């Protein structure tokens, strides 16, 4: 698992956005909303990332809209969640240690 983290910001937010089933444009909107407009995923970036994550088995197809266009919905897998949680542990460690910066001031 170790060589999978740290995750890139894009992968981190795609995995997070796929805690519930979601399709491409939904992911873009969700990430934009979560980051208050800071991260706006380009369609090419997202399409490529989805292909890669699906190949890695971190996300899977949840449903395919067969009638109209081939719109696919994705969801995170158990493997994907494991990776996400080990990244989360790393981030918690970073944040805990980051707080040292303010504490030692007036010794």
């Amino acid at each position, binding site marked *: 698992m170790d060589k999978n983290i740290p995750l890139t910001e894009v992968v981190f937010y795609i995995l997070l956005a796929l805690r519930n089933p979601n399709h491409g444009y939904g992911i873009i909107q969700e990430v934009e909303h979560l980051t208050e407009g800071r991260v706006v995923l380009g369609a*090419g970036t997202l399409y490529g990332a989805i292909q890669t994550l699906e190949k890695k088995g971190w996300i899977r197809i949840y449903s395919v809209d067969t009638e109209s266009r081939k*719109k696919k919905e994705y969801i995170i897998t158990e493997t994907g969640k494991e990776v996400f949680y080990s990244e989360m542990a790393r981030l918690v460690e970073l944040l805990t240690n980051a707080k040292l910066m303010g504490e030692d001031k007036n010794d």
Partner: protein
Amino acid sequence: MIKFSLRFDKDTETKWLNEMADQGYAMTGFFAGFYTFEKCEPGEYSYQIDMIEQFGQVPADYKAFMEDTGAEIVQNWGIWVYLRKRRSEGEFQLYTDVESMIEHYTKIRNVFKVVTAMELVILIVELFGAMLGSPVLWIFVFLIGAVVLAFMNQVVKLNGIIAELKERRGEAVQGSNGRNVSAFLPVGLLFNSCALTMTGNSELELVRIIITILAISFMLLGIVQTVKGKKS
């Protein structure tokens, strides 16, 4: 309106299409260097060019995905896809983080490498044909030679872009040990071996001299470029 333009550089092509759209000409089609434009409101569309894995066929899920984000596929040409989006629907960027940009440009670079290699083989064949007495083939030799040079230029340029992106990612770009061998070197060597096969044939003396000169200049260029590294 139809415009003819030969473009090998995706980025300047995109820029050109967007400038045309700013002036009220929306690109609606492409065929072998011929761009079709239709009148539009100035600045109505933003254009982007993407590269896909399959040749000549846009995957259905790619199409659905792009349309879902408000983009429209204007034209598919080989592995290239021309997309546009109404500017009223927001900014149109395909690649928004360094990782995916590196991936995108690397894919393009690798395609250019393969195509350049194939063109080189064709060039050698035409060269032999021309030397063996079909002077008409010299036209092709020069045409293909020009294309090969343009493509090699692209490879060098794309290498530069990729190196810059990697630097931005905070990755130390490999210095001396990661130096690329310039494509000019093998080309020069190939030309040189062509020239060598012709020695002893007095009729081909002039041709041999020309090719030898070409070979030497290519090899020199290759050495200079390799030693200099990819820093421009």
